[in-house]
């Protein structure tokens, strides 16, 4: 297929081992198409035919369907599998010669063959132009549709540019990330910005071209014909495989580098054991022997958090710090570390990010980032001896061990029974029996919460919640409960 305008005669290759077949056919064709046909070769085997295909560039191959020497099935299979879009006609003189098979293995009657040959030049021209327009890089040819194609490409680029503009406008205006309050947040946000920009750019390219196509390539009314026949383009496909591959590998590489930065270890950090329970947080400062329900951190100094859980999986997250780590049950082996270096003084909140049941939404604890001096003062104040009054101590334990997350002290209904007016009262249990909430009962209920369940409540209290409590601490808590008798 050399050119789209048919000044040159059709190049016909005939595959048959009978010379008469060829000559007769040629004269027939010439008669029908006014000498517009040129016989470029005669072959008698498939190998010869395939060779001739590449050297002689025929437009039409006519195969003698009756010739046993030319294995037509194999020929057809080889041809159909091939890349070339040639025409093959299998002609048979048997059965009155009224059947032929064209290249797409359609069987048609003799009368249809005539039609097919008539229309043949027209379809070939159409197809040629389609081929040309997909091969933009071949400059030796003339392109009747080149300017139109250029117009479409420029149009699409314009639409992409408009969407890009809108996208970046929104990106710059939108409130997308919370305050940046740690060294790690700064690094992570850099990566976020790159990601956001890539999202906008890629979205604009795909949607832009799509929107342009929807507008520019809609079917004109009254036009019921099909569009151009373009099957694909291997170099384009390779291009849009390799470029994204490069991009994602680069981003992964950047991600790994920044992960390294985020996890960088500073010498002598502030160490805090973060203990999560359903549904409270406890913060222990092992260097100072402090237990707190609030996470106090000095600014510009790395904090090394040792995360663990007493019951199920929780997750430590302060959005302003950007980093997150699950807190796992399972003792010392399952303790996980998280490093964060706060940079902004202020009040934040730890949020539990892993669904942990009933009180998940409210599992929050305050975080304060303070100056080093304030931090030291706080340590000083906390390390002073705790009150002598067991009731006061009990109130502190109740808070630190998370009891009051479920047991209210003012009578509000919660996950567990309220402590207000509980001590010494008769309580109905799940099985209908009655029990007096005295010291012995309360001790048992804290040590082994599942043993007896108060009627109307679920067995939700973690069985090992008191594992870290001493008997003295439990006694203090009971004293505190007793003080809430009204």
């Amino acid at each position: 297929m050399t050119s789209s305008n048919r000044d040159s005669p059709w190049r016909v290759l005939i595959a048959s081992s009978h010379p008469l077949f060829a000559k007769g056919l040629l004269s027939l064709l010439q008669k029908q198409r006014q000498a517009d046909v040129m016989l470029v070769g005669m072959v008698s085997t498939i190998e010869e035919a395939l060779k001739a295909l590449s050297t002689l560039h025929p437009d039409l191959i006519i195969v003698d369907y009756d010739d046993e020497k030319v294995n037509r099935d194999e020929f057809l299979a080889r041809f159909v599998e091939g890349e070339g879009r040639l025409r093959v006609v299998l002609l048979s003189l048997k059965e009155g010669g009224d059947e032929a098979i064209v290249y797409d293995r359609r069987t048609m009657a003799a009368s249809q063959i005539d039609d097919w040959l008539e229309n043949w030049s027209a379809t070939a021209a159409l197809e040629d132009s389609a081929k040309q327009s997909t091969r933009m890089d071949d400059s030796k040819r003339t392109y009747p549709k080149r300017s139109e194609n250029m117009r479409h490409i420029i149009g699409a680029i314009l639409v992409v540019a408009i969407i890009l503009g809108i996208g970046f406008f929104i990106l710059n205006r939108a409130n997308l990330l919370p305050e940046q309050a740690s060294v790690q947040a700064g690094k992570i946000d850099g990566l976020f910005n790159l990601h956001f920009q890539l999202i906008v750019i890629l979205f604009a390219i795909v949607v832009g071209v799509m929107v342009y196509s929807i507008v520019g390539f809609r079917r004109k009314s009254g036009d019921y014909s099909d569009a151009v026949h373009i099957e694909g383009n291997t170099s384009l496909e390779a291009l849009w495989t390799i470029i994204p591959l490069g991009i994602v590998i680069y981003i992964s590489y950047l991600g790994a580098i920044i992960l390294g930065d985020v996890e960088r270890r500073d010498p002598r950090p502030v160490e805090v054991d973060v203990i999560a329970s359903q549904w409270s947080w406890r913060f222990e400062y092992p260097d100072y022997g402090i237990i707190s329900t609030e996470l106090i951190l000095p600014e510009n100094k790395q904090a090394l958090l040792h995360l663990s859980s007493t019951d199920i999986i929780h997750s430590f997250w302060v959005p302003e710090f950007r980093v997150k780590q699950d807190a796992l049950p399972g003792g010392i082996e399952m303790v996980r570390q998280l490093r964060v270096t706060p940079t902004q003084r202020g009040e934040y909140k730890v949020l539990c990010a892993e669904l942990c049941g009933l009180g998940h939404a409210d599992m929050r604890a305050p975080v304060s980032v303070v100056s080093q001096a304030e931090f030291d003062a706080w340590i000083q104040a906390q390390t002073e001896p705790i009150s002598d009054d067991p009731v006061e101590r009990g109130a502190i334990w109740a808070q630190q061990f998370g009891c009051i997350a479920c047991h209210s002290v003012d009578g509000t209904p919660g996950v567990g029974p309220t402590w207000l007016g509980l001590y010494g009262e008769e309580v109905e249990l799940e099985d209908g029996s009655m029990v007096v909430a005295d010291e012995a009962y309360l001790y048992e209920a804290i040590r082994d919460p599942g043993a007896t369940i108060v009627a109307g409540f679920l067995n939700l209290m973690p069985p090992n919640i008191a594992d870290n409590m001493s008997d003295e601490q439990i006694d203090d808590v009971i004293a505190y409960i007793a003080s809430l008798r009204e």
Partner: protein
Amino acid sequence: MNVLSLSLFRGLIYQVIGTGVGMGLVMLIRLLMRLPAWKPEPVWVGGALMGVITFMFGTRVLEDWLRWARGEETPEPEHGHEQLVGWKRFVNVSFDHKVIGVQYGATSLLMMLIAGIFAILFRTELISPGMQYMVPDFFNTLISLHGIVMIFSILLGVGAMSNYLVPLLIGANDMAFPRLNAFAYWINVPAVVLLMSVLFLGGMDAGWTGYPPLSANLAKMGFSMFFLGVYTFGLSSILGSLNIIVTTLRLRAPGMTMFRMPIVVWGAFSTAIIALTATQLIALSFQLVLFERIFGMGFFDPTKGGNVILFQHLFWFYSHPAVYVFVLTGLGVISELLPVFVRKPLFGYRWVAMSSLGIALIGFFVWAHHMFTSGMESYLRVPFMYSTMLVAVPTGVKFFSWIATMWRGKMIFPTPMLFVLGAISIFLLGGLSGPPNATVATNLHLHDTYWVVGHFHATMFGGFIFPFFAAIYYWFPKMTGRMYNETLGKLHFWLMLPAFYIQSLGQMQVGLLGMRRRIADYDPVLGLEGTHFWITLAGYLIGISIIIFMVNMVLSVRRGEVAEANPWNSRSPEWQLPSPVPAHNYEEPIEVVGEPYDYGLAGSVYTSRKSPPIPAATGD
């Protein structure tokens, strides 16, 4: 007609009886073991298990197999059921893949409706801070069920598309194993019943992911029903995909090489490979937790030497590839419909086909990206970041091929095409919001936030919901012989598309700003009320659009215009058949003689029959 003559109702009654018998049996065993007869969980689980088995007997889907086992003559299938007309055909056992396809589809839409109602309920709760009308416990049950019921719906929808389309599109008369096909559908029904029973048997509060130790909490018996339901459902996935693979490999029409299959078959085939090989893992992981609950085996209980992270590996080893189970068939539908409405060949057919297989393959190597904050080995996160990012490459090939297909086409925009275009743009949003999750450093912020919620809703809507609706509208005339109402169809689309964008972008934004996933209430300090209001409003709009869709379907099935033989002027073989398609699809076998998508190539045909073919291209 007696209700008991219909498989569905007979099965359900058998299930109720079977559950009672099973419960009695467990109590008897407990008494023999000198335990108190009544302990809710083991008794209910035993009953539920028995109920599933008796359901299957009740439907008589096992009848032929039992006959074979007894060495009896098996009559030709269908004879008993042919007389049934209308909806009754679809609540009875049939071995016809088209009937089964519609059964899958109807069940899928029903599940979607239920899960959608759950969503509307908890979105209303989230419209402003503070608890409005729900208790947190019920909220947790609702979000958990919304997730898993939607997943059921999606898997059923994928089953609908692959069952209805694969045999028709490859020129086969039915699936390779029609009885197994019916079994795989019917086992879904008791699974759905079990799942719904979660609502009444104590609820569940760990999300559809069901991470232990929370899901091993014995206070919530709903978990056991959930695990058992998913387990049963998984059996359907495994058997159904086995059938699809064998059908695709063995029953293609003569001349249809793998690279001449309609492209949606490639999607269904890739999907089936994943479902056949990965589903066992979720079944196993849920079975282990079930055993932990009932027998006290501490697989994941640290106090008994178990490990909580192990579960997550097992779970995600299925549940990540499952994402591609959800979307690959849908993406296949996009590639299938696009050429018809653009009137141009699918650009780079082989690349698109191979990209489906590529996604399926890479999908197996990325599971741990769900676990970047889980506390697994820190250094392992980096290779999983690289492997996850690789998914973008074959996915990108699909997008670029789609826009190249549109380029210089002659596009028309009936409802299915609108849904195809909507699907592309939304799946793009879902796809592009993926890399920030895949990058470990940014994932540390995003994990378990509403960003993730927005991200995966976009992939599910773009990869399944929109293509599923496109497929329903496109093949509606094939299934029913009637046309749907175009105005209502377009209204459905134009409500759903913008509403979805508002919802998804809103979710992503609140997530970035600090909104955690799965919380019943949020802190007013975050200042997110405005966005939450819009998200809820958009959710309502999506709900309304679904109602419009349902109305359209119901009206059109009965009163729609009689459809033309080939309303979309498609080259595909199913449109050369009468609509609805007769029981054994191709009375006259077809032969494939050309490429599937040669639009614009005059005179070319895809399939031929002995009678003269209809030329697919050129004006009429």
